[in-house]
């Protein structure tokens, strides 16, 4: 029985913590109060059954528990002096969806606190909003639980010392917050999808939790094309998780992946979300990226990929985000359309900007190998090895070096 309740608590947690943080203006107290309400629920729901509206029940119980705490604890004085006005009341029965929406957005935004670096923003969001344990987050970031505990504590202290505004955001602020929060979720997924370095390629917990947050945003803002597209994009990448690493732990490139291992239900949902997003607008950064990912996902084989569509979408993305990494991806599509020599020449313009970006050298090595310049290919691949690749990447690159060396041996 308690598994079902845990799942319900996990589902209600973001909205409950968000509303409680508004009431108490204190994240720790909100977390404590919610935990207490869950303990009470275990007892009461166990005998009486779950209420029709679990969120309203949890909110009311947690609010009372939190107020009780305040009365007893000395922290009360500090919190009351920080906010002289009375605590805002919680809706008695059904929480107002508009208010909840702003609560969750505010809480997500608090986690994206500008004083925190990106990793800490993500760690705090995982801890506070999704309720992951410190041990789970630590294993997500491949650090010791003790280290993670200290980092989260420090981050929360920084948040408490530099409070962001608790007022209901204006439409403009809401727009800014939404894009800041969306970016945090996008980067959380990226960190899970392509670890910056280390023994594993993917940290699936991070990917899955990023998807959960993206889903939460879509539920809160169902008519925002970019947020639907962000969820679609993450689902499309996530769908390939079983095909990206082979039995020996080596990274498998898109061309060589067994497409029957792609998760069809992820892809189907993403396509539905993307079609919906495209009704709303065509020019957002997530919509363009999701359209590109969808072009890959809907190609039956690597050869059937619509590279012209992909190339033109990278060009459109470059107009919005003129970064060398976007350009690199555009050149990768151009390599398929115009051949490796064209692409090698195009890469020249990025040499300076991307000298320490390992994917630049990996791609260049692959292209040089294609045209038979094995000496230069080996040099490019060896540069990759100096740029802290993950173990699966190292294995794949080492293989490629061996192929080129073998070719040289035959000359």
């Amino acid at each position, binding site marked *: 029985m308690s*598994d*079902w309740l845990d*799942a319900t608590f996990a*589902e209600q947690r973001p909205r409950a913590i968000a509303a409680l943080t508004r009431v108490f203006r204190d994240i720790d107290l909100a977390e404590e109060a919610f935990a207490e309400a869950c303990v009470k629920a275990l007892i009461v729901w166990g005998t009486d059954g779950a209420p029709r509206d*679990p969120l309203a029940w949890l909110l009311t119980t947690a609010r009372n528990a939190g107020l009780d705490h305040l009365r007893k604890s000395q922290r009360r004085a500090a919190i009351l002096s920080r906010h002289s006005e009375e605590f805002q009341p919680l809706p008695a029965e059904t929480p107002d969806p508009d208010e909840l929406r702003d609560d969750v957005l505010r809480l997500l935004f608090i986690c994206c606190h500008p004083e925190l670096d990106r990793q800490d923003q993500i760690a705090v969001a995982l801890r506070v909003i999704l309720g992951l344990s410190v041990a789970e987050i630590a294993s997500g970031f491949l650090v010791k639980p003790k280290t993670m505990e200290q980092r989260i504590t420090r981050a929360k202290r920084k948040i408490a010392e530099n409070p962001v505004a608790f007022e209901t955001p204006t439409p403009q602020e809401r727009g800014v917050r939404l894009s800041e929060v969306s970016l945090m979720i996008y980067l959380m997924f990226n960190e899970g999808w392509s670890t910056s370095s280390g023994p594993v390629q993917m940290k699936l917990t991070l990917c899955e939790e990023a998807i959960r947050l993206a889903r939460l945003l879509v539920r809160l803002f*169902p008519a925002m094309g970019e947020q639907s597209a962000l969820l679609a994009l993450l689902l499309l990448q996530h769908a390939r998780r079983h095909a990206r690493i082979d039995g020996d732990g080596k990274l498998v490139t898109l061309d060589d992946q067994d497409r029957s291992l792609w998760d069809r239900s992820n892809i189907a949902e993403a396509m539905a979300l993307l079609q*919906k997003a495209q009704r709303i607008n065509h020019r957002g950064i997530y919509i363009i990226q999701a359209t590109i990912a969808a072009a890959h996902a809907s190609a039956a084989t690597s050869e059937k990929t619509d590279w012209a569509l992909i190339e033109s979408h990278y060009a459109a993305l470059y107009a919005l985000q003129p970064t060398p990494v976007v350009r690199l991806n555009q050149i990768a599509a151009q390599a398929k359309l115009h051949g490796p020599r064209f692409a090698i020449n195009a890469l020249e313009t990025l040499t300076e900007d991307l000298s320490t970006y390992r994917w630049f050298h990996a791609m260049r090595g692959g292209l040089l190998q294609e045209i038979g310049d094995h000496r230069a290919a080996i040099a490019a691949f060896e540069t990759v090895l100096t740029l802290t690749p993950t173990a699966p990447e190292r294995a794949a690159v080492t293989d490629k070096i061996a192929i080129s060396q073998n070719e040289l041996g035959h000359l």
Partner: protein
Amino acid sequence: MIYAITIYGEPGVFEALPKERQDDVMSGHGALQDALKNRGAFVSMKLMPPTSAVMVEPARNDSAAPLIVDGPFAETKENFLGFYAADFKDLDEALEYAKMISSPIARLEVRPVAWAGGALSSD
């Protein structure tokens, strides 16, 4: 009489369950589908999350096109997640089959069908 067994619940709760519990739920669905298959035609559907939905509002007047609104129905507490429909002898028999997919995360409604048509399956 055809009965529809409709499933309501909070989206996301199933996904938050541990793997074994998800398997428990799915094995109930597997058993129901096998049992229904053995006794004739049926349909089953699991709807995608409501966030992928678009609403079609009725037109204000005869000459106007219906209004298409992005987004699902406003925050209903429980969502319609999917359904089964098959020909049962009577309500009691329909209820017997519905029990196979009963779980703490979903509410089931068993309702007689007034008319039906078409045939559809994705596998």
